[in-house]
């Protein structure tokens, strides 16, 4: 009995301890990733959480007795994953917090905020004498923290602009980093010669080593700013690529200098060996990347039966590439980047759309976690680590880092500019040099400095100082400065709305013309590669290599098709909905008295314009954003709207029968993804309409209405056909040009254009047969859509475009028509989805 009470008491106490532990871990948890097994604290002297020392001796001795313990705790067993989880959670909470109040992240880069939180946590830990987490163990950083970040960079690299600018990028990344390292190293060495500073014991090798650490540029903060203020693509991609590749260069340089720093003296032979090694490391990394990339692509060719684990291959192979490169001490960063770039194209065509989404999400998620943790720990470690502060050394480090970066950009740009079509102006150069923030790599490398270096703590302190200085001062000020400099600013106060609209229009035109001119297909080797790719690589690596055209075109074509289908639904287009009324009311509006616009209204308009106008080449930008996943919504939106406008221009009255009922259908298309599922969905749907059903379906407004052509569910061509006659209609038609061109335009983007393709195109989209088409055309409109005249114009009641469709609305609506039909239509939809 006594023991029972005792154990009860112990249970309560245990719960208390649990709570206490939780609390403590929030503040003082450790993240020892390297321990895959339950921690045996003796193995790792760094792990001495004091709660363990207190808890264990008190809580557990009695359990040694023979009685079965009712409540036990084995904290050491779960310590590592437990604390790791808590750290990740804490950092993630911090991220949520920043985004609750959005304006914070506009003005202060997220990395600053993370570091600040880290500083606070570090302060708490310091005050309770807690040891810092040992995340920056060399192995942990390089084996676990770095790969996700680099994989993210490689996977979401905007390939086209990157390869267009690859020369410049490599120039800045390789030569610029060398320039910075050597420049800073030598200058610091010169400073060390002054006796007053008391740092004569730092020799040249150590200075160079240190310089190589702090020359790695981490452009995350700068990129976010650049993206927000819409800086031009060229600067953007150069900063991006530079950050990517100088990681690799820095790591190589670092290992080289670290090796040299150990040697008492360096002869010239070693330098040459170092240079040779540099190339071995770089080229080797790229080769390994290719190898694993192709193997990964080849593997995914066979994974279509095991969709569940499809995404895994991407991660495993890239990690494998990384590890193997690490094994041979070649550039693992380059290996994983190359691997990701290589496999992406093939893998994304091989895997299902869902796996593709999963891959993207997971890549982003891992990278974000990694980076969040790194910045977070940077703050923590800044407080808790031992510092050696030397005013002179640190001040000069900051100064030189800044000066050499600026000089480097200036000089290197002068050299590269003649080779560039779009030359960098001085403002651009300023942006480039000012965007050179130091970040995670620098920090991690500083902590991996070997202990044999006698001024290690000074180097660590100086590195942290450089990071914090650049991240805080430059990171915060870069936005105002760039905006002031007007690198490319949307001047909201001075410009008229006209200018804003026209400007954006011009930008679209220019980018359209660029596409048209095929900016990048003119490279000889690119053409060669494309042929090689089409003939050999695609055959080997892709399961379904029917797509014959360029890299993106398949995907885009499919999306285009989706959009077309969406528009084919008679009432599918929500975006156009409200505008119908307006088009009809156009004349009335024209005659109404001029509205006066208040200044506030105008400002609001500018606001709307600047926030909502489609970005130029939105894809490129979005993909490279560190923290956000690429958003394909906009692409679709554009496609849908374009087709909507075509439709509208063709037949102004065609939206009259629009009603909310059809949302579900459109949504169904919306969720359809390119690939086999589209096919299956259509096949099934087509099968599902019997002739009789269609009538009912039509009345319920959900399914296509042409009863006479039940195999031809779309009445798309009907509209196309009408183009000719509608072209003549005045005023309301969007493209009231003479009839033949009108048809042309439609042809180009409507299914009519692709009518010629489906036979060879990968998706057997539901093209109607030309005979049906002709027939369709003969049908008088009103006979075919009896409800049209009766139905009132609904548009204003349509839900806002955002809510493209509550999915559950569908069955109810259909059910209203006919319960049996609901079954069939749902069935088809369901199977369409599940086929994906």
């Amino acid at each position, binding site marked *: 009995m006594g023991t029972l009470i005792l154990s009860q008491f112990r249970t309560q106490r245990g719960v208390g301890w649990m709570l206490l532990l939780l609390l403590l871990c929030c503040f003082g948890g450790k993240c020892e990733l390297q321990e895959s097994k339950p921690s045996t604290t003796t193995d790792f002297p760094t792990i001495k959480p004091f709660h363990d020392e207190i808890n264990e001796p008190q809580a557990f001795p009695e359990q040694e007795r023979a009685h079965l313990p009712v409540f036990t705790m084995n904290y050491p067993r779960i310590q590592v994953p437990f604390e790791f989880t808590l750290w990740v959670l804490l950092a993630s909470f911090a991220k949520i917090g920043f985004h609750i109040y959005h304006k914070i992240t506009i003005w202060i880069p997220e990395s600053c905020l993370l570091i600040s939180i880290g500083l606070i946590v570090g302060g708490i830990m310091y005050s309770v004498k807690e040891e810092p987490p040992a995340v920056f163990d060399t192995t942990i950083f390089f084996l676990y923290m770095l790969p996700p970040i680099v994989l993210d960079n490689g996977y979401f690299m905007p390939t086209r*602009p990157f390869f*267009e600018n690859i020369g*410049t990028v490599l120039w800045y990344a390789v030569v610029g980093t060398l320039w910075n390292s050597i420049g800073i190293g030598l200058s610091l060495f010169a400073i060390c010669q002054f006796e007053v500073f008391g740092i004569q014991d730092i020799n040249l090798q150590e200075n160079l080593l240190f310089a190589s650490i702090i020359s790695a540029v981490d452009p995350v903060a700068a990129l976010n700013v650049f993206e927000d203020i819409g800086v031009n693509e060229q600067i953007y991609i150069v900063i991006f690529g530079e950050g990517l590749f100088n990681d690799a260069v820095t790591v190589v340089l670092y290992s080289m200098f670290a090796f040299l720093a150990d040697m008492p003296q360096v002869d010239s032979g070693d330098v040459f060996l170092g240079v040779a090694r540099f190339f071995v490391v770089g080229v080797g990394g790229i080769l390994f990347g290719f190898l694993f990339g192709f193997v990964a692509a080849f593997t995914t060719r066979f994974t279509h039966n095991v969709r569940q684990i499809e995404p895994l291959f991407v991660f495993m192979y890239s990690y494998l590439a990384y590890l193997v490169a690490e094994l041979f001490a070649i550039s693992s960063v380059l290996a994983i980047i190359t691997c990701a770039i290589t496999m992406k194209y093939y893998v994304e065509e091989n895997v299902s759309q869902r796996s593709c989404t999963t891959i993207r999400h997971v890549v982003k998620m891992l990278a974000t976690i990694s980076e969040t943790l790194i910045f977070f720990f940077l703050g923590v470690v800044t407080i808790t680590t031992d510092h050696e502060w030397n005013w002179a050394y640190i001040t000069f480090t900051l100064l030189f880092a800044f000066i050499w970066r600026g000089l480097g950009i200036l000089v290197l740009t002068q050299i590269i500019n003649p*080779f*560039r*079509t*779009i030359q960098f102006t001085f403002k651009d150069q300023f942006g480039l040099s000012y965007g050179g923030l130091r970040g995670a790599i620098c920090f991690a490398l500083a902590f991996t400095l070997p202990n044999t270096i006698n001024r290690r703590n000074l180097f660590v302190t100086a590195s942290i100082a450089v990071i914090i200085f650049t991240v805080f001062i430059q990171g915060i000020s870069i936005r105002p400065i760039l905006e002031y400099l007007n690198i490319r600013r949307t001047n909201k106060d001075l*410009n*008229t*709305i*006209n*200018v804003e*609209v026209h*400007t954006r*229009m*011009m*930008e*679209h035109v*220019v*980018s*359209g*013309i660029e*596409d*048209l001119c095929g900016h990048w*297909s*003119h490279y000889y080797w690119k053409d060669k590669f494309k042929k090689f790719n089409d003939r050999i690589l695609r055959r080997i690596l892709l399961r379904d290599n029917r797509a014959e055209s*360029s890299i993106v*075109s398949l995907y885009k074509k499919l999306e285009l098709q989706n959009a077309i289908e969406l528009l084919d639904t008679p009432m599918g287009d929500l*975006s156009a909905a*409200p*505008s119908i*009324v*307006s088009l009809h009311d156009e004349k009335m509006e*024209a005659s109404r008295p001029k*509205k006066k*616009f208040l200044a506030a*209204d105008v400002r609001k*308009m500018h606001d*709307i*314009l600047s926030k*909502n*106008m489609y970005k130029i080449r939105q894809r490129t930008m979005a993909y490279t954003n560190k923290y956000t996943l690429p958003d394909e919504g906009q*692409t679709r939106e*554009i496609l849908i*709207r*374009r087709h909507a*406008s*075509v439709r509208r221009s063709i037949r102004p009255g065609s939206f009259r029968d629009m009603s909310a009922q059809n949302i579900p259908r459109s949504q169904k298309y919306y969720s359809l993804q390119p690939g086999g599922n589209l096919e299956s969905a259509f096949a099934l749907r087509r099968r599902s309409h019997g002739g009789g059903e269609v009538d009912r379906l039509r009345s319920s407004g959900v399914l296509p209405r042409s009863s006479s052509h039940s195999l031809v569910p779309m009445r798309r061509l009907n509209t196309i056909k009408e183009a000719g006659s509608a072209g003549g209609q005045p*005023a309301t038609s969007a*493209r009231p*040009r*003479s009839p*033949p*061109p009108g048809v*042309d335009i439609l042809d*180009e*983007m409507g299914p009519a254009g*692709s009518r010629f393709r489906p036979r060879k195109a990968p998706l057997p989209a539901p093209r109607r047969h030309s005979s049906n088409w002709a027939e369709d055309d003969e049908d008088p409109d009103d006979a075919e859509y009896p409800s049209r005249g009766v139905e009132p114009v609904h548009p204003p009641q349509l839900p*806002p475009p*955002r809510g493209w469709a509550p999915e559950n609305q569908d069955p109810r609506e259909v059910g209203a028509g006919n319960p049996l039909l609901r079954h069939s239509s749902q069935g088809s939809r369901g199977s369409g989805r599940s086929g994906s």
Partner: protein
Amino acid sequence: MGSSSSSMDHIPNAEELMQETGFSAAHLLRLYERFEFLDKDQTGELRPEDFGAIGGLALNPIGDRIISAFFSPGQETVDFPSFVRVLAHFRPNGTNRTRNGTQQEPVNSRTRKLKFAFQLYDQDRDGKISRAELLQVLRAMLGIQVTEEQLQSIAERAIQEADLDRDDAISFDEFKKVQQVSPHPQTPTKETPLHPTEGGR
């Protein structure tokens, strides 16, 4: 597509085109290669579908307008000379090396550029950007979140700003004036990044 025509001989009327458009031989050659590339069925003429197959253009909110700009009314195809003539609008001005006196105005002059832009708006070619035309462009360029009312008022405002003769539409002269009030770096008059030569480096 891979016709190995890498010499100027294959291009019809190369000399005249160079004279007319100001493109250099290299530019022209490069454009010709591109033209052939786009011309999938080797007819020597491009149809709108050929343009539509360009991925980037399909995603361009006003891609259809750009495409239609290549086709003069009544024409269903565009041949190489016309193709180049349209593209010549996008040559940076100030770099006319082959200007001869006979030409009244180079195709890449500011006015011609503006005219080109104007015609992208003015789809019915009546010399005016009507409110409806402006609205269409706005609708194409603005995200789906913007309500129709907002679109209306923005169009209204834009027309009011530019409309000098109170006809509730923007004529070309008015359009030109608007662009001159605050010349923005991105008007086509400035150097666009477009070059037929090189994209990046």
